[in-house]
């Protein structure tokens, strides 16, 4: 019991460290909101004229949760560069010499990446209101969306930490980060439904956790959205995140060698 309590406490301390940094300088939160706003306001507005989807939901309604998940992906997938930066500074060495479980270091950082994404969710809700998106306003719905945002961010930021621990240099990391983002984004139902994908892409989208993040977010956020099996979506994202936290925890020490 003590071990679990100590693990949770240390995870939260690592997260608090990161969150305090954001509070000291919150500018990044606002600059990061620009990109999703452009996707919805420009891409969404133009693309909807082509009537890319059928059914009861209009296109802007359809893509708004997709863009929320996309911005979670884009913000989190580059999070790993922070650990390379901290390694170069010497911070990682000091943390690894403390009696903190490696998985607590990873999970704490991943949670803070999730907290970084929460203002994005708020801004996307605001844009949705401005554009007349049919939003579901239940408190539980909004809380569940925010939880999924944090979970999604935990998954992708941990994925990013794993890459950082393997490639070890900033240059290689940036290359791989760029290489991953677009395929992950396009092989999901963020801006078009899975039904219209070619068969091979359908298979990839099924093993892409982004698809499950979007399924849940869409059902929870948008009125009349197609239903999904929410416990299943959450279970898949949680299981994938837990696996990645475990892998990243065991690779973490590699970054300093």
């Amino acid at each position: 019991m003590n071990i679990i309590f100590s693990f949770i406490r240390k995870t939260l301390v690592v997260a608090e460290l990161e969150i305090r940094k954001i509070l000291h300088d919150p500018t990044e939160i606002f600059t990061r909101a620009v990109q999703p706003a452009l996707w919805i306001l420009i891409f969404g507005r133009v693309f909807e004229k082509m009537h890319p989807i059928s059914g009861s939901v209009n296109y802007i309604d359809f893509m708004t949760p997709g863009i929320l998940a996309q911005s979670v992906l884009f913000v989190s997938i580059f999070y790993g560069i922070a650990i390379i930066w901290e390694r170069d500074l010497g911070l990682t060495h000091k943390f690894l010499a403390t009696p903190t479980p490696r998985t607590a270091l990873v999970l704490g950082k991943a949670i803070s990446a999730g907290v970084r994404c929460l203002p994005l969710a708020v801004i996307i809700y605001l844009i949705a209101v401005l554009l007349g998106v049919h939003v579901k306003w239940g408190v539980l719905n909004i809380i569940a969306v925010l939880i999924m945002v944090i979970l999604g961010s935990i998954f992708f930021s941990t994925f990013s930490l794993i890459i950082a621990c393997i490639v070890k240099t900033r240059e290689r990391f940036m290359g791989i980060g760029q290489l991953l983002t677009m395929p992950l984004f396009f092989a999901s139902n963020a801006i078009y439904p899975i039904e219209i994908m070619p068969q091979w892409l359908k298979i990839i989208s099924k093993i892409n956790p982004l698809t499950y993040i979007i399924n849940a977010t869409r059902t929870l956020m948008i009125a009349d959205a197609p239903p999904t099996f929410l416990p299943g979506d959450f279970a898949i994202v949680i299981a994938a995140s837990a696996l990645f936290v475990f892998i990243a925890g065991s690779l973490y020490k590699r970054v300093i060698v």
Partner: protein
Amino acid sequence: MPVLLETKKITRCFGNFKAVDSIDLTIEAGEIFALLGPNGAGKSTLIKMLTTLLPPTSGDAYIDGYSITTQPNKVRRIIGYVPQMLSVDGSLTGYENLFLFAKLYDIPSKEARKRAKESIEFMELQQSANKLVRTYSGGMIRRLEIAQSMLHVPRILFLDEPTTGLDPIGVKMVWEHILNLKKKYNTTILLTTHIMEEADKLCNRVALLSRGNLVVADTPENLKNSIGKKEATLEDVFIHYTSESLANENSFRDVMRQRKTENRIQ
């Protein structure tokens, strides 16, 4: 004095290169001990192994009886470590760096606050405690780093080149605080340095490393008397024992690392 740290044929290879070659070393409780040697002699690799960051290829070391290979978590609880590079977070305040770090050693919040405050006073950083660390001078940062590594009152403190890149006033203040630590807590200190005066002034014993081997270990006085030169300094001792390796230029990586540390501190 009881033995606090003991290495047993500790060895670390990187590929075919032996960075640390079968070193046997004993440090007694309460000693200030310096590791000297040219760049690439194996000092930092040895410290990384002792602080559990790098597993030895063979051999072992015991700190207060705990093995670094089989009981790393026990070791981490009783050591403090200040790496050569910067290790406090510039985007947090001095106080935050201490208070939050203390909690990683399972110190309860109330006690963590108290210790953070005390160590800020001990290191004479009260004026800047609530300022972001990126506004600190190099000497202040080093003092904060030492304060951070002392919050859990470790049995032994590892300082990897604690005064590299500092101006003379910064160096002097760091030295004073190291001696104060020893006086107040009787902490055993193992430091690496390139500054012979530092080793001479602060340390009870000095070990010379060259090409991964332990060449000699003794008190500064005995070492100076051992080379058969009148009024010898530690510098003479250093040159006497390591002249061969000094002929080799520092590697590009060493130079780059040292410049990086210096730039960040200034």
